[in-house]
């Protein structure tokens, strides 16, 4: 056994003074009843938000131009998800880094997404009873990669911007089967069939995995536009809010705040830098008792004298 000096930030003189009555069961019961009353009151007064989820059907009917543009980007491999990199696909130079280390690249592609196949061609393959789709798919699949790219380029220079009734107006020349594929996927989405097709892409029947429909949804501007009108965009303190005037995840304020300031806001590695900062700060909180300086602040700040004012008053300190 060794001895060391008394450290007021680590050691205490255990209490041998007066005790007072304390009914722990009564205290617990009163606390539960009090919280129950508070929760019931808040629930009656404010309820809870429940805005319906957005579907691909809703999106493609409300803004078919945006949907068709996004569908083209998925087929061409130019959408945000197609160019995302790990864990969805392999795109050199996309993994965020801290110094030389890219943790996401180290983990690799574990949720493989090929947007052309998974979001466009495979869903359309469930619609082969529609002759135009069957023909277009066969034409696409029998074409060379360079031919496909030529069609995509030609289509991309004249993306549809107008509607004729419920149908998209395609103006691109020499785009091969691309207009038919995009038009077919848009019709499929408008009927609601694409929602189910994307959900069941990776399974035979049951699915609780919404990765594909959510990624497709996030590639368009419609979903983000709705979020902005609900004050949920990233520059509106994004995901810590929820729809309506509810407190949301207020405890994420620091995490969300970091995204609003430099260097995080302007860094291409913003996400990993914010997470690294939060991990560091969390570790500081957890290990406060062992960190000199940080553990001394309470003694120096002296807020404890307010908390224990009755004790210090009676003990004459």
């Amino acid at each position: 056994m060794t001895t060391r000096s008394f450290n007021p930030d680590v050691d205490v003189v255990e209490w041998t003074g007066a005790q007072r009555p304390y009914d722990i069961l009564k205290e617990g019961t009163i606390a539960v009843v009090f919280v129950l009353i508070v929760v019931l009151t808040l629930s009656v007064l404010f309820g809870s938000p429940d805005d319906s989820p957005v579907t691909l059907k809703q999106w493609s009917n409300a803004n078919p131009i945006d949907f068709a543009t996004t569908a083209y980007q998925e087929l061409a491999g130019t959408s945000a998800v197609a160019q995302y990199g790990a864990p969805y696909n392999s795109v050199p130079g996309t993994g965020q880094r801290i110094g030389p280390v890219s943790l996401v690249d180290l983990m690799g592609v574990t949720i493989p997404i090929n947007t052309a196949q998974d979001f466009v061609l495979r869903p359309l393959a469930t619609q082969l009873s529609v002759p135009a789709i069957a023909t277009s798919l066969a034409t696409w699949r029998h074409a060379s990669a360079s031919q496909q790219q030529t069609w995509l380029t030609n289509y991309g220079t004249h993306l549809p911007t107008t509607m004729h009734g419920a149908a998209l107006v395609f103006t691109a020349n020499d785009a091969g089967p691309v207009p038919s594929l995009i038009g077919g996927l848009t019709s499929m989405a408008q009927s609601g069939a694409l929602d189910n097709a994307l959900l069941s892409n990776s399974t035979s029947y049951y699915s609780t995995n919404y990765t594909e429909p959510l990624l497709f949804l996030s590639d368009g501007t419609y979903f983000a536009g709705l979020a902005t009108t609900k004050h949920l965009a990233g520059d509106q303190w994004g995901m810590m809010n929820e729809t309506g005037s509810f407190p949301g995840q207020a405890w994420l304020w620091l995490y969300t705040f970091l995204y609003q300031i430099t260097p995080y806001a302007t860094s291409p590695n913003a996400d990993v830098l914010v997470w690294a900062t939060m991990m560091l700060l969390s570790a500081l909180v957890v290990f406060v008792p062992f960190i000199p300086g940080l553990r001394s602040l309470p003694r120096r700040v002296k807020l404890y004298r307010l908390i224990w004012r009755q004790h210090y008053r009676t003990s004459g300190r």
Partner: protein
Amino acid sequence: MNDPRIARQWTTRLRLRVEGTFPPEKILPDTQPSYVASWIYVFGVLTLAALVMVIVTGCLLAIMGPTWWHVSGVGHFINSMHLWSVEVFFFAMVIHLWGKYFMAAWRGGRSMTWVTGAVTFLTSIGAAFTGYLSQTNFDSQWIATQAKDGINATGAGSVFNVLNLGQMLMWHIVLLPLVALGLTALHVILVRKRGVVPPFADVTEAVSA
């Protein structure tokens, strides 16, 4: 206990150790030190009470499944209670945490009490976050698509896919509550074992280490 074989049994050793560490007056005390006299102490038990409400309302929602509350008035009200229980829980817990910080409540061999409390706070953030992802409404869609970038950037997205409702629901109703409740139990046991930290005193003598 005269039989040495009984004294050596794991069960006997554990019972004796528990009896020595947690005599009944520590588990269910009827007195406490006179310095425990501030409203700040209320927020610990309020956090526990709110946790009870979170668990009870969550269990009620679980009976009918994750989408019931969208189509039932009763379900929606229970969901509202679940939401506000969580808000009260975090409100009370954050005040409790700051209060304990300014009391330097880790002193006197209570560092693990602090650590378990702080880790419970972080675990609760994860539990609440997965709850938002499990709501099966616009909020869960938006929060999932926003949060994926941060989690993916750390590499954790490879095994923790926020876009996978089934996975997030399981984390929300099984894994994270188990961890949070286990840590909370450990935290309370440590509080009962060590007692409430005494006030700062002007003492400078040597202590055994």
